[in-house]
């Protein structure tokens, strides 16, 4: 597309212009996102490293199998699918806002920005619910030959190996219960740490989008003659979505 407007043989690197045909603000945003990718990368790679260094890990399908208002139904991955779709949808509305921005259509930008903000808030709401559910969850765990009730926190992980019925009856405990051993503690730390850090990005993205919405509403971008700020906010927002794709992979799928 863009190739049609740019004469071939342009000397991109000769100075006096951007070698990428991009304004410095957008270049900076991109490289900031690169740098942020290394922050997230380091988190996720640490997670992988610790996971590789222990014999057992929590099975995501058992950890994340609840759904709001669904009681104790076993719905593995259902809720996180919802969260993923919310984020993808909000990404779409964001890119549509950028698109309207290119067309200098203020009303359109406003509409899609509002939708994006709603999407972001919905995602944050889902995450709040999921965290609460995990922390307050009650799981029977065999600790020092006695059964304790644990939620999933940064110091407690009830998602270890299942304790066999024979072992339970040998210890004189009710044999028909589902009891586990404590799982690797790092699981909770990484889960809350990384989803928290991602959630923090979503939150700041929502704030940025809100500011952009207000600025749009006040007509700042019309005065300036371009909607590049919306594009930059969009880059950030898509990056948040992009990170989620990998968080989703590491914590929920594999």
């Amino acid at each position: 597309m863009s190739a049609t407007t740019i004469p071939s043989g342009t000397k991109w690197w000769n100075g006096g212009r951007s070698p990428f045909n991009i304004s410095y603000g957008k270049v900076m945003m991109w490289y900031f996102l690169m740098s942020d990718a290394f922050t997230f990368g380091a988190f996720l790679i640490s997670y992988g490293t610790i996971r590789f260094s222990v014999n057992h890990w929590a099975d995501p399908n058992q950890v994340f199998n609840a759904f709001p208002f669904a009681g104790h139904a076993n719905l593995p991955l259902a809720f996180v699918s919802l969260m993923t779709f919310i984020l993808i949808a909000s990404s779409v509305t964001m890119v549509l806002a950028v698109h309207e921005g290119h067309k200098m259509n203020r009303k359109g930008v406003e509409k899609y920005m509002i939708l994006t903000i709603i999407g972001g808030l919905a995602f944050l709401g889902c995450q709040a619910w999921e965290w609460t559910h995990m922390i307050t969850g009650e799981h029977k765990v065999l600790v020092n030959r006695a059964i304790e009730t644990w939620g999933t926190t940064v110091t407690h992980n009830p998602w270890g190996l299942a304790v066999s019925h024979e072992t339970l009856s040998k210890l004189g405990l009710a044999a028909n219960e589902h009891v586990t051993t404590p799982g690797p503690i790092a699981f909770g730390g990484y889960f809350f740490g990384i989803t928290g850090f991602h959630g923090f990005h979503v939150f700041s993205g929502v704030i940025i989008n809100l500011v952009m919405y207000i600025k749009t509403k006040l007509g700042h971008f019309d005065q300036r003659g371009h909607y590049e700020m919306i594009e930059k906010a969009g880059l950030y927002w898509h990056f948040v979505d992009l990170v989620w794709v990998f968080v989703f992979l590491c914590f929920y799928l594999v």
Partner: protein
Amino acid sequence: MSSHVSSPEITHAPEHASGTGRIWKTFWVLSILTIIELGLGYYLYSQHGGLSHGFTLATKSLIGILTLAKAYYIVSVFMHLGDEIRNFIMTIIVPLCLFIWFIVAFLWDGNSWKNLRNTDAGSREAPKTEKVEHAPEQGAKH
């Protein structure tokens, strides 16, 4: 030069996609890829670890590849990187290649810690209880 050229370092106004068709197409691609991923993830779970190690690994790799495909679509279409000129695409892609060695070295060493722990640095045999990760009664009961 169209009116939204914001900065003097841009000499050619990039022409953006005219329709929203491509955006929606990408939305559907992303959705379908996600659904396939979920399906594969659920399949792994429904087998309760009864699958062979190699097959599980292959499936997980497939999920990983699908994730990379999703990332490609998000970056290329939503973030418009695909529309930028080659120079710029390369400055983004090349540094990301560092992740390859970053991941390989870290996971390799992580795995090596597991071996050190399991064998007490080679001073005893590794315990043979590796394969009880999913006790069959675990999933259904909950």
